C-alpha cells in the first residue's frame, strides 16, 4: 500500500486527505495548529450562499475520521528528505519520522499584514480594521467603533496589499472583491441605518453567483460603490477616519469621513509555503506562491517528481476552487502512485 504525506491541514489538505484515503491510500496529514481548518477558522459566513463557514469546516473535519488518515496536529515538518527511489521522509517537530511515496504541499496562504500600507494607518488609527478582524466582529455580533458606538458610516477598501508594487504584490488576490460585497451585505443586515461604501478599482466577480450578489448588494442593500483606490486615511479628533480617494468615473477628488474603515487584506503565500518551496527546491512565481509545472495541465505538479501542490499555496483561490483543486491533486497523486 502507498503512503502520501500531506503538509497543511486547511481545506485543501483535508479534502485531498479524504479523497486519497477513499482511494485506499494511507495518508499522514500534518497540521501546525491544534485543529484543522486553517484560515477557514477565521471566517464567519461564506460567499455567495452565506453558509456558516464552520459548517463546512466541521464537514471537512468529520471526513478526517477515515481510518486511512493519520492526523498529526500541532506538528511542523522540521526536515524533508527524498531518497533515490523517490521515497520521502519527513521529520516532525516532536522528533518522529514519517515516510511516504509522495508529498502533497497544502501550506496555503496568509493574509497581508495591513500595517505595511502605512498610509492606511492600521495599528495606529483606532477605527481601521481588516476584513479578518471584521469576520471576528461578525462572530461576536458586535460591530462597534473604538468608543463603543454604532458606526454610522463604514467604508470597505478593496485591493489592500494586492495589485500593489509598493508592497511587492503584483498579483490580484481574487477573493477580496466578493468578500467585500459579502461583508457589506452582512454589515447592512446588522446595521440597517448605516451607510456603507466600497472603494474599488475593478469589481472582479469571477465566480458563479458573485455578480448576482454584487447586484443584490446594490439593489437590495443599497451599498454604494465608488471607483477609486484609497490614497490615504487620517484620524480626526473624534477618532473618525478621513479618507481621500478620487472618484475616478467623475474625475474629481472625493473626501468622506468614516466611523469604521475595513481593509480587504489580500493573500500572500504563507511562511510555510515559502519555507517548503525552499526546502524542496520547487520554484516560486513572482507573486511568491509556488509555481505549478504548467498552468493548465500541470497545476498540481511541481518540477520535483513526487512533490504535488494544492490549494492556495499556488495561487489565491476561493473554497470551491480549493476543494476542486484538492480532488484534482488526489487524482494526479493516485495516477502517479499507480505508475510507480
Amino acid at each position, binding site marked *: 500500500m502507498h503512503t502520501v504525506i500531506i503538509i497543511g491541514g486547511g481545506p485543501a489538505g483535508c479534502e485531498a486527505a479524504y479523497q486519497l484515503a477513499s482511494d485506499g491510500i494511507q495518508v499522514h496529514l500534518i497540521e501546525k495548529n491544534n485543529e484543522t481548518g486553517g484560515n477557514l477558522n477565521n471566517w464567519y459566513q461564506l460567499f455567495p450562499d452565506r453558509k456558516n463557514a464552520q459548517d463546512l469546516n466541521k464537514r471537512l473535519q468529520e471526513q478526517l475520521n477515515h481510518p486511512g488518515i493519520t492526523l498529526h496536529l500541532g506538528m511542523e515538518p522540521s526536515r524533508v528528505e527524498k531518497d533515490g527511489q523517490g521515497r520521502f521522509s519527513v521529520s516532525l517537530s516532536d522528533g518522529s519520522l514519517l515516510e511516504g511515496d509522495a508529498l502533497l504541499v497544502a501550506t496555503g496562504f496568509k493574509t497581508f499584514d495591513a500595517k505595511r500600507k*502605512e*498610509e492606511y*494607518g*492600521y*495599528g*495606529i488609527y*483606532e477605527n481601521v480594521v481588516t476584513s479578518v478582524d471584521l469576520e471576528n466582529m461578525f462572530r461576536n455580533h458586535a460591530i462597534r467603533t473604538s468608543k463603543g458606538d454604532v458606526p454610522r458610516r463604514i467604508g470597505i477598501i478593496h485591493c489592500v496589499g494586492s495589485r500593489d508594487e509598493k508592497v511587492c504584490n503584483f498579483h490580484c488576490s481574487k477573493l477580496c472583491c466578493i468578500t467585500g460585497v459579502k461583508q457589506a451585505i452582512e454589515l447592512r443586515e446588522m446595521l440597517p441605518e448605516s451607510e456603507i461604501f466600497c472603494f474599488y478599482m475593478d469589481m472582479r466577480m469571477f465566480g458563479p453567483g458573485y455578480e448576482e450578489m454584487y447586484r443584490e448588494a446594490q439593489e437590495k442593500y443599497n451599498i454604494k460603490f465608488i471607483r477609486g483606490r484609497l490614497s490615504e486615511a*487620517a*484620524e480626526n*479628533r473624534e477618532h473618525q477616519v478621513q479618507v481621500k480617494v478620487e472618484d475616478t468615473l467623475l474625475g474629481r477628488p472625493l473626501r468622506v469621513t468614516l466611523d469604521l474603515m475595513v481593509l480587504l487584506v489580500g493573500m500572500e503565500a504563507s511562511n510555510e509555503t515559502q519555507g517548503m518551496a525552499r526546502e524542496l527546491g520547487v520554484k516560486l512565481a513572482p507573486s511568491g506562491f509556488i509555481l505549478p509545472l504548467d498552468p493548465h495541465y500541470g497545476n498540481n505538479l511541481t518540477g520535483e517528481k513526487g512533490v504535488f501542490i494544492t490549494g492556495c499555496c499556488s495561487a489565491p483561490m476561493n473554497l470551491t476552487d480549493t476543494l476542486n483543486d484538492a480532488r484534482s491533486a488526489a487524482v494526479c497523486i493516485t495516477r502517479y502512485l499507480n505508475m510507480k
Partner: protein
Amino acid sequence: MNLEGKQQVWKDYQKEIADDRYYYARSCIRQTFFPGSEWAYLDILKNKLGKDVLDDPRHTTCTGIGYHSDVVPVQTIMTVVARHFALMTEAGYENITPSCITSFGIYTEILETWAHHPEIEEQIREYLWKATGREFKKPKNLAHTSDIIYKFREDIAAQARYKLVDVHTGRQLRGVDHIGCHYAKMFPSKGIGGAEFPAVLSGMISSWGGDVVDYPERRHCCGFGFRQYLVMANRGYSVANSKKKFESMRPYEPDFIVANCPGCAMFLDKWQYTISEMEGTTYGQDGYGIPVLTYEELAGLVLGYDPWELGLQMHQVAVEPLLDKMGIAYDPEMKYRTKEGKDIGRPKCPTYLKV
C-alpha cells in the same frame, strides 16, 4: 491614535547620519527669510555640540527652484550639484548637509539616478570637468540639516534652558510638525520615520517637552508648488493649500507649527496674514496667528538664544504668545532695533491679525 503603531513605523525607517564633519550648503529661501536660523544652526553645531561644520563661501544655489519651475534642465542642476560635491571633496569632507529641503530632495534624486544610470553620472563628470576643471567624490553621507538636529535632539535637551511647556500651567505645548514634501515623499527610506509618519520634527518636539499634534491634513503640501507661488496669478493655489491645513489643525489649538522646509515655514507664516486680510480669519488664540518656527529657531529658543538674534521678528505672525508660554525673557523694545540699538521704525499693523 495608537502611539506604539507609530513607533513601529519609526523603527522601520531609521537612516544613517554621520556623527561629525559636515559640509554645509545654504538655502536660497532660508538665508533670505531665516538668516538667523542658518546662523543658529552653525552656532549650535559648533559651539553647543562641538561639531566640525564647513560653511564654504564658494558654493551657490543648487538651482532647485529653477529646476522645479522647469526653466533649468536636469543636466544643468546635476552639474551644479556635482560642483558642490567637488567643493566638498576638495575641502576634505565626505558628509553633505543641505539646509534646503528641495536641495535635499534633489541631491537624493541625483544620487539615486546615478546609481541606476551610471552613464548619466559619467556624462555629468565630463560636463563638470569641461566647465570647471573639477572632479568629485560622491558624498559618503547625505542628510538634511533637520536630520542632524534630530540626531542630537537629546544633547540639546540636556543643555536646554527652556522646555516646550507652559510655565504658567505646566501644560505641554502642542506642536504641529510640517515636513517639506521633498524630504521623504519621493524616497521614503531617506527620511527619518518614512513618508507617512515622519519623526524628524515630532521627535524634536517630544524630546524638548512638547506634545505632538497629528491632524488629518498633516501630510498635505503647504502649496508652494514653485511656479504656483512664484507667478502672482497662481498664488490662489498656494494660499488655498495652506488654508486647508490651517482649517484642519485649528480644532487642536496648536501652540506652534515647526517646519523643516524653509519655504513651508515662510508660507505658513505669511499666508496666515494674507488669509486674515482677505477673509478676516485668524487661527491662533485671541486673534493671533499660530506661530511658525523653523527647527533651528525651536532649538535656539530651547537653548536660550535671544529671540531677536534668531530673527523671530522676521515672522509676520507674532511669536510673543509662544515666548510668554515658554517663559522666555525678551526685550520688546529691541524687537525692531538694529544691532547697535538704533531705531529704524517698525512694521505697520495688519488689519485683523493681532501682532
